[in-house]
Structure formats: structure tokens, C-alpha cells
């Protein structure tokens, strides 16, 4: 409990927050005014507005390496032994039934038919990292990438595993990584949301909005869905028949009336906050479309992301928008590769080859383009990229026939790049079949701890008082970041 950060907003409990903000804090930012009936609604001084903006920029615990985070979520669970975790033994065993303990959608098993990896591996870069043929473009960037090949999670079932990867808990109701980042650091751009989620055109992931929920924190910290085509935010567009000038007129008159109402209630700052939030929303109607407007980008840039090519157009657009959001100070951006169910995402239960060639093919060039573009613009150093799914896949087949693999939370690969991560290395290993992590196993919590750490926050100190506890993203027990890669 006493592990509270010094001189920062984020370590304060709600009660301290209330207590202190009562002493008079004038924030200029206004992305989301927070008051809680019963907690915050009376933080007032006689003379001046006292806005308590939960998204105002806050000091980190220690100097941050990463200002923004991009989480490339490969929903469904990519196969590690077909992508980055090279298992030469596995090719030879193809088709043989061997003793191996697995646990997945199909339950716990003691043996299974090996599916040999379907792609060849080669070493790339000066560091000689192994990458399969699935990623011909990304393989050029391995010297910037740290592969964590011994990831483990607590559930091999999509629903709970997604919650675990996003919120650190198997049960729903807790804030997501992006919420914690915004809670801890605030946002430097008040004209855009601090936690953006961009979904696959196939649909959302299982459990939908639970994956970007702010849980027990206020809604100000929840992820905002942003679209790459059409109006980027929900309800952002003026209704048909409303012009910007008409809206301006309405807002002017609204403000006049609201100010008249406020004049006799000067000490009630929620009223001022709401007046300002209408202006902010109006500004966002320009700033949000501008952020997703790719018309100013050069053809070379568009090509770098694969925009205009049928397979890579969608993910490429979302990656390029992501770069634009990073440039505009958005704190946390999550991109989903894959949506809905079955082969619409990386969940290759049937035909592994078809599935992974499809999803890797859609994303390889855009991700490589994003890395290159960020690097060329000098943004990669301050932008942390995470790649991975909610779990990996088993070395053995799920069904009597076919190449599909079942889920595997005992061992899988994720990678990180930029944002102070030491690239060109792999940490941890799985066994020779890729069935389970053996050397330096890292839990999802270690990954989360690493992200917070790189953003300048101590994962064991960043807490939010709720339900009688100082809740932390990484849980009660102290969790180490993955020191080997930072």
C-alpha cells in the first residue's frame, strides 16, 4: 500500500486526490473533467475555476523512454513455431504422434500428432534473428526488435486470455493497459483521445468493448474506437443538413445561455467544464478527421505501408494513421489484426497455411513500413511497439486431419521494438517442440510491467484505490519488467 510514487498524481488514492485537489488546482487541459458524486463534486474555491482533469499530463516516476505505445494485437493467437520461434526438430516429426502435454480449446491432452512448421526459417540482420518466410518485410527490421520467446499466460481460452492480455486479469471489470497508461501519465493532446483502438474490418474481438474498458476507473480512461474510413469517431459527424456554420451558431448561443446560468453559480466548476467540453468537441471535429486524413502523405509513404494494394490497404492505412496519432501525442494505440471468429483472425484451428499466410500477408508490409517510417522520422526511439496475440499455438494438430493447431498459453512469442527496447535479440526459450516456455519464462504481467516501465512508471507503484485495495495492473505481488530487453 505504501508504495506510492512521490509527487505524482497517479499514486494518490482517490481520497488523497480529493483532499488535495480541494486545495486548489487549476488545470488548463480539459479533455475530461472528472468529478464523482460523493467524491469530487465540491472541489471548489471562491474565485477561480478548479478543473480536475484526469487526462492532464502528469510526471512519470522516472524519465520515460517511450512516450507512446503501439500494440499490434494479433488476435486469435499466432503460431510462434511458424513465425519467430524456430524449431528445427519439429519439421522432422511432422505427422508422428508423440507424447506431449497440451491444454487448449480441446481440453488437456497427453499426446498428439505433430504438425511440422509450414514455413522455412532464415536468420536476418546483424543479430541473426530467426524469422519465417511469412514476414519477408519485417525480417529487415529484426535488429530493432527484441523477441520474447518464452511468454506464458493463464488461459488458453480466447475470452479470458484476451482479458488477461489487455487488463492483466482473467475476469472482466478491470482497466486495460491503455487505461493505466493514460491514468498514470495523462495525455499531451487534448484534442484527441488518449487511448485509441482501431479494429479489423472483419469485426471486433471476442468480448468486444471489454477489451478496451476502463473497468473500475472512470470512462475518461476507456479506449475510444477510431475508424480509418469515414468519420473517425462515433457521433463525430454533424447530422445530415447541419453545416459547421450552423453548429457554430448553435454553440455560440448555447454558450451564452450556459454562461448566464453559470454567472450565478460561479463556484460550480462542473458547469464551466461542460461549457468548455462543447468547445473541445467542436475542435475535435476538425482535429480528429485531420489526424486520419492521409491526403497529405506522399506516394512514397503510402507505398511504404502497402496502401493501395488490395491485401495491405486496410492494415496499412491503420498503421499510417497510427504514426500520425503518435506524432500528435496519442498515448496508447491498439491495432487489431483479425476480428470476429475462426479464420477471420489468427485462430488457425483448421488450415494453418491458409490462415497464417492470409493474416501475415495482410500485415507484414504495413508493420515493416510503420517501423521504417517511425525510424526515419526519429520517432521509433520514443515509441514502443508491441506485437503478439493472446497466446500461441500447440506443436501438435487439434484434429485428426489438417494442419490446424490448438491454443497454447504455456509458451509463445511476442516482440517489442522502439521505446528504449534493445533490439536484435531474443530472450527466453520454449522446449524443442515449442510446447512450453522453459528458459526465462515471462508472464503477461512481466510484459505489462515492461510497458509501464518504459513509459516511465513503476508497475509496482502505479496504483488505483478500489474495492479496499491499491489495485495495480500487475497485481499484488511485485513484478519485474523484462530487464534483458531494456
Amino acid at each position, binding site marked *: *500500500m505504501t508504495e506510492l510514487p512521490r509527487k505524482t498524481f497517479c499514486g494518490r488514492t482517490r481520497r488523497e486526490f480529493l483532499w488535495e485537489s480541494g486545495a486548489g488546482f487549476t488545470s488548463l487541459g480539459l479533455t475530461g473533467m472528472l*468529478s464523482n458524486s460523493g467524491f469530487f463534486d465540491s472541489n471548489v474555491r471562491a474565485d477561480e475555476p478548479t478543473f480536475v482533469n484526469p487526462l492532464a499530463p502528469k510526471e512519470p516516476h522516472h524519465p520515460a523512454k517511450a512516450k507512446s505505445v503501439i500494440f499490434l494485437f494479433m488476435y486469435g493467437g499466432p503460431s510462434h513455431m511458424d513465425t519467430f520461434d524456430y524449431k528445427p526438430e519439429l519439421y522432422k516429426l511432422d505427422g508422428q504422434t508423440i507424447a506431449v502435454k497440451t491444454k487448449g480449446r480441446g481440453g488437456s491432452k497427453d499426446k498428439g500428432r505433430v504438425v511440422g512448421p509450414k514455413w522455412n526459417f532464415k536468420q536476418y540482420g546483424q543479430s541473426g534473428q530467426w524469422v519465417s518466410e511469412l514476414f519477408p518485410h519485417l525480417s529487415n527490421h529484426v535488429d530493432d526488435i527484441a523477441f520474447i520467446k518464452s511468454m506464458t499466460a493463464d488461459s488458453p481460452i480466447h475470452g479470458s486470455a484476451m482479458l488477461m492480455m489487455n487488463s492483466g486479469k482473467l475476469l472482466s471489470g478491470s482497466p486495460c493497459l491503455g487505461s493505466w497508461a493514460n491514468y498514470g501519465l495523462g495525455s499531451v493532446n487534448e484534442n484527441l483521445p488518449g487511448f485509441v483502438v482501431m479494429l479489423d474490418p472483419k469485426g471486433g474481438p471476442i468480448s468486444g*468493448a471489454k477489451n478496451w474498458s476502463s473497468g473500475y476507473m472512470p470512462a475518461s480512461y476507456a479506449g475510444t474506437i477510431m475508424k480509418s474510413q469515414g468519420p473517425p*469517431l*462515433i457521433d463525430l459527424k454533424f447530422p445530415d443538413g447541419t453545416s459547421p456554420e450552423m453548429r457554430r451558431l448553435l454553440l455560440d448561443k448555447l454558450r451564452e445561455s450556459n454562461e448566464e446560468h453559470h454567472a450565478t453559480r460561479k463556484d460550480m466548476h462542473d458547469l464551466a467544464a461542460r461549457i468548455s467540453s462543447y468547445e473541445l468537441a467542436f475542435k475535435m471535429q476538425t482535429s480528429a478527421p485531420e489526424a486520419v486524413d492521409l491526403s497529405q502523405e506522399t506516394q512514397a509513404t503510402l507505398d511504404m505501408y502497402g496502401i493501395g494494394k488490395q491485401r495491405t490497404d486496410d492494415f496499412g492505412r491503420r498503421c499510417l494513421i497510427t504514426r500520425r496519432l503518435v506524432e500528435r501525442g496519442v498515448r496508447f494505440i491498439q491495432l487489431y489484426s483479425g476480428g470476429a471468429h475462426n479464420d477471420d483472425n489468427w485462430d488457425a484451428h483448421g488450415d494453418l497455411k491458409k490462415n497464417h499466410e492470409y493474416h501475415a500477408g495482410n500485415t507484414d508490409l504495413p508493420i515493416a513500413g510503420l517501423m521504417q517510417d517511425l525510424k526515419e522520422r526519429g520517432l521509433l526511439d520514443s515509441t514502443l511497439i508491441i506485437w503478439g496475440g493472446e497466446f500461441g499455438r500447440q506443436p501438435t494438430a487439434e484434429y485428426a486431419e489438417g494442419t490446424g493447431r490448438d491454443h497454447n498459453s504455456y509458451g509463445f512469442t511476442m516482440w517489442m521494438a522502439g521505446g528504449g527496447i534493445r533490439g536484435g535479440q531474443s530472450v527466453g526459450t520454449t522446449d524443442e517442440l515449442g510446447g512450453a516456455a522453459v528458459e526465462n519464462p515471462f508472464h503477461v504481467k512481466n510484459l505489462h510491467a515492461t510497458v509501464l516501465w518504459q513509459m516511465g512508471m513503476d508497475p509496482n507503484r502505479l496504483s488505483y484505490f478500489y*474495492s479496499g485495495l491499491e489495485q495495480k495492473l500487475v497485481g499484488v505481488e511485485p513484478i519485474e519488467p523484462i530487464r534483458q530487453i531494456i
Partner: protein
Amino acid sequence: MNFCNFFYLFFWLGLASFAAAQDEAPLDFARHVQPILAMKCARCHGPSSTSGGIAFDTRDRAFAETESGRPAIVVGDPEASSMIERIVSHDESTRMPPEGKPLTAAEVEIVKTWIRQGANWSKHWAYRPLVKPPIPPVNQKAWVANEVDQFILAGLEESQLTPNPIADKRTLVRRAYYNLTGLPPTAAQVTDFENDSSADAWEKLVDRLLESPQYGEHWGRKWLDVVRYAETNSFERDNPKPHVWRYRDYVIRSFNDDKPYDRFLTEQLAGDEAPSPTSDQLIATGFYRLGVWDDEPADRVLAMYEGYDDLITTIGQGMLGLTFNCARCHDHKIDPIPQTDYYQLLTFLRNIRPMSGGGPNVEANLFASEQSKREYEAAVRDRQEQMDVVKKEIARLEEIFTTVTTNEPNKEEQKKGGRNYLTQQIKKRGLEVLGEDEFAKYEAASKMLGELQKEPPVDKALVVKELGIEKPADVFVLKRGTPGNHGALVEPGFPHLFAVPAPTVQPVAEQNSSGRRTALANWITSQDNLLTARVFVNRVWQGHFGRGIVRSSNNFGGLGTPPTHPELLDWLASDFMANGWKIKRLHKMLMLSSAYRMSSNGQEAAIAKDPANDRFWRVDLRRLSAEEIRDSLLAVNGRLNLELYGPSIYPTIAAEVMAGQSEPGRGWGKSSPTEQARRSVYIHVKRSLITPLLASFDFPETDTSCEARFSTTQPGQSFAMLNGQFANEQAAEFAKRITNQVGPTNRDAQIQLAYQLCLNRAVRESELTRAKEFLSEMEQKHQLSPERALEQCCLLILNLNEFVYLD
């Protein structure tokens, strides 16, 4: 400038001067000192850990000699107290606390002052016996309307604050309507009250509103927040919970019927164990089924304990105001709740049949009367008998079929395929093998069987059921909370801080139930329970005054916020129990007080002295809740459908929001426009798809108990209210209503009416002028038709702060 430092400077100055001022007046241990000890010290020096031989959870342990030989506290002498030395130390290696933020200068000052003043110690306020305190004397007797005011005024006079004057009648009538029903009054209702000059006009209004069925809808929703009510399971499929809306209706009905709170709780905790339980008693136990439930858990045993934890958390915080959940893995760090208390509580729940998606383990049939129950049972028996006859006939014909075909080569297949195979074969070849007559008989019998297998229609509820009356499975303390890591065996018993003997549990043969939950309910609703009444009257207070007497209404423990008016809280709790736990009586008492009727105006002096309104010198302005906003939009345009109760409704959700689901549209039904115009409390609560307008105005998180809603202000709300389809539709409807009433041309009358409907007051001259300017500019400059211009004007009015904030 660094905001945080700025912040701290203010904070430091404020509290330091506060502490200095307290030199004469003794500090209140519970209010000022204990929170600091709990926050800063108790993790290592508390009930679960006595590092260095010192702990600040009881007086004896705090004053004991430490392992170093020096007492932590020397009464009257802060300089000699080693505790002070340690907390002010500049040496990080010796300074307390060893990790995290040190005590602020102001906090150190408070501890010092407290020691200097004699270090008086009292038991944590919430664990003290509940004794009805005397009513304090006051000077300004004219202000006092009832006992509540005596307590409030005594506090104000002590702080030399003046209560705000009573608000005007229009403010009061709006406050009363919103507060009791969640809806605005109509123009006529306002006029009625304004014109009623009788002395008891206010009382009559409160009485009338308490009798309106909309009261139960509004206050029932508050209880639904506490019990984390939702209608789906969360997780991958987020499937609907069968019949769960009946629980919502039960809650609404209970409030409307003024069901005593002790009975309300007993029904939810153990209604099924009552002799011949009524439908409501069964429905109430749906309480146990409201939480999140993973139908495909990674670890079944762990998932089972997560389910218990969810219940212990909800019962603990929701009914008892304590965080027993913190003692799942180890002794509570702050409160005197050892880990054994947690597992003793778990024994009461151990025998519950696990949740499932439906079926007899979680569903019960409901009957209006014994008569209808008997009729239903007779119908089931009848069906059974008929079924026996039909089955015999089918068996006879199958026999013939198999005898004829027995020598055919596919015999093996037939064996393997079992009945299904046989049925298929008969369907295919029955005519040929059995002949026309017999085959016709077979077909008729099969069809009949299908019909008979359907259950006779009956209402069902989602309920709790137990595994049987045999002794439930053993419960062990789980070391570190890990299933399988057994510690001591525990038996049913109550948390030891309550100091009550373990119950005698009587199994309930009629319901095949252990009777343990009845024992739990009896204890929770006992007049002697320290906390049940305190926690609930505090919630009711919060519902009227915007915040509880204890602000942390789910946590009355050491890390909660101490009550601003402890005596008032105890007085209310005692009075509540002594008068049969009647909730409407409590509402009325609070609302008839002068304290409730004050205006929300700011007084400069009071704001300077008590900015947080801790002393209740005014009524706080409040933003309407998500439901109140949506319902008000419908109410002012005259479309609100006040139909009560029944299965949930589905407002239209934009496709772009649905796109966030893995199967867009899954689990979301379609309701007619009339249905969609019903009150928000009837909207289907799908955990992974909360209705966007409600979500943006801080609908509570559905997965854990919500003690108080947030009240955020964010641009998304403006988008919804200005660009959203719902808001624009309501504005158009509003314009239509106005035109219908006063015609299409008279702008003055239109604007007058709009203000009257929306804000329950006459439009001011400046507002009228502004609105007319707006209308003409919309028509002339922006070429809008008069109708469209009026719609825009209506949209504007619906977005006024005055519409969304209540004085």
C-alpha cells in the same frame, strides 16, 4: 510550472495551518489520525504484521514497547516518540514508511499534535457498538424541522457556518421529482405545488411521489448498482442470463411496496429457504446469479472460487460496508479481518449449485398460487402418463421393424447408430417394412411424443439452489488464496470483529438446502449487527444529498473515509431499525428536513471555510445520471412510455458501435419505437455492449459493486448530445410537440413552452431574444425551414447546462 508541486504546496499550506489551528481543539482520532496510520503504517504495523514489535491497530499494541526498546509513542511528548523520529527522518534508510511517499508535513503535524494532546485512542468508529446518540442542542431552533437538522445544524454552528436559505419552490419541486422518481415534473405538477400554500404542501408532495411507481424504478436502480446487476455473463459469449429481468422487477417492486430492508436482504440471501417460498422470495435469490460467469474457464476450481469471491465481495461491501475480499489471500492489512473470517463466510455459500447457462440447477418455476402450482404439476403428470403410452406404442413398432430387418447386413451399423439410426431407418423404410397402417401409427406417435416432450408453459426465474441437505463440502483456509493449498478447516461463523457466536444451522428439508444462507441472512439483518443499518442509511443519505455521510459507502473500514457526521449516522441507523427498517419513512424524514431543502447557492465565506461542503451548509448541485438524462429527453417531448416491468428492451444501437462486437448485433434484440421509449432502467444490460448514451454519462461498471457513480465531463458526451441519432430524434419530437401545442408560427409561444417543458420555468427576456435571433438566423442565413429551425432550437435547449444539472 509543475502542476503537482504546485498542488502540494497548496495542500501543505492548507493542512499545516489547519493543524496549527487545532492546537486548542483536540484532534479527533478517528477522523484525523487513524486514516494516516491506516494509510501509511498499517501495511507493516497492522493486524497482519507487527514489524519491530509495533502495530497501530489497537491501543495496547501501539503503546507497547518496541523491539528496539523505545516506545513508538510517548504520550504528551512527540519529540521523545520514536515514531515521530522515524517519520520525519531525512535518512531514506530509516525513514518510515520504507517505501513510497513519506508523510506530508501536514500529516506529521497532525500526528505530533495528537501525541502532544495525549494520544487519545478510540476503537475504529465503525466497529463501535451502535448506540442511539442523544440529539445535540442548537441555537437557531427556528431552522430545525426535525432531528436530522439538529445534527446538521450543531455541526454548522460549531464550525460557525450558516446554512443556506430554503430553496424556491420551483427548485424544490424539481429536486423532489428527480430525486424520488428520476423524472422531471410536468408544468402542471410544478404549478400545483407552487400554488399550494398549505403548510404541509411539501410533505404532501413527498408522500405522493413516494407512492408513484416511478419511485421504485429510480431507487431500485440504485440498488442494482450495488449488486452489480447485469443481464449477461461477460466473457467470450456474453450470453444472456435467463429470466434475470425478474430480479430487476423484484427490486423495483420491493421499493414500491416499501418492503422493510431486513426482509429485502433476507429474501435475496435466503428467500428460497423460507417455508413455502413465494415467487418473489425465489426471484430475489437471483441475487446470487448476477455476477460475471465464465462458461469456459481455464481452471474450473479457480473459477468456482472466483464465483465465491464475487459474492463475498458484493455481500461484504454492499451489505456490510467491509472489504472482506482483501482477506482472501492473507489477513486483511488494515482491518481486523483475518483470513479465516473470509473462509468462514465462504462456508455459507459453499453448498450453492454452480451457475450454468440455464436448466433446473439455476431455474425455478413460478406460480401465482398453490392452486396454479397443483394444476401445473397435474399437467406434468398427465403428460408423463401420456408419454408412457406413446413410448410403448413406438417401442412396439420399432420392435416389429427390427425383427423384420434383423438379418440385414447393416446390423453392426444399426447397433452402433443406436436409436437415432433406428429412427432414421424407420423414417426411410418404415412404409415398406411396416406397411401403411402401422407406419401411419408410428408417425402419429412420434409426432405426439415430440409435442409431449415440450414442457407445459410456465414462468421461470433465475434462482439459487443448493446441492442438498447433507453437510456441505469442507471449507479450508486457502493459503495465499490458492485452491488446493489447504490451511485450517473452518466451520460457519461470523467475522470475529463482530464478536457474535457461531450460528446453529438448521438444514431446510423442504428445499433440500443446507440452511446456511438463512443463518447468514439472520445475522446480517439482526438488530445487533454493527453495520447493516449504518451502511444502508448511508446509501439512502447519499441518494438524497449526493454523497454519503461516509463518502466511501462500500468501505466503512480503516481505509474508508470517516463519517462527517458520525452521530447522525448512528442516530439514523438506530431510528431506522427501531421503526421496522422502513425505507420510505427514512426518505420522508430526510426530505422534510431543512437541510435537504436548502438552496445550492454559494456563500463566499462558507466556500472558503468548507469548500467540500463537509458540514452540509448547502445542497450540492448535481448532474443528472445517465438514465435521468435519457428519460428526461423522452419525458419533455411527451413520448416517455411509463409501462412498468417486464422483459428488457433494446434501443437501437448504431452499426458503428456494434462493429466492436465479434459478431456485430449478436445478443441485441429489436424493440418497437414505443418500447424503446420506455425508461432506461428497462434497457437490456449487456456487459460487453452498454448502451452508448448511458455509457458516456457514466453508467456504472457492471462487473463489481458500484458505491457511487462517476460524474465525468467529456467531449464524447457533447458528440452524443449534439450529433447522436437519439438526441436529434428527440429534438425533432420535441419540436413536433411544441408545434402541436402552440402552432407553427408563434415563436414567442414556442420558446415559452420549450423552456416550460424543459426547465419548468418561464423563459427570461434575454433568453427569448437569443432564441429568436437563433431561429431567424437559422432561417435566413442558413436557409432552414421554420420547422427545421425549431428543431435546432430544441436541440440547443436540450443541451443547456440547466437541463442536465439540478440545483
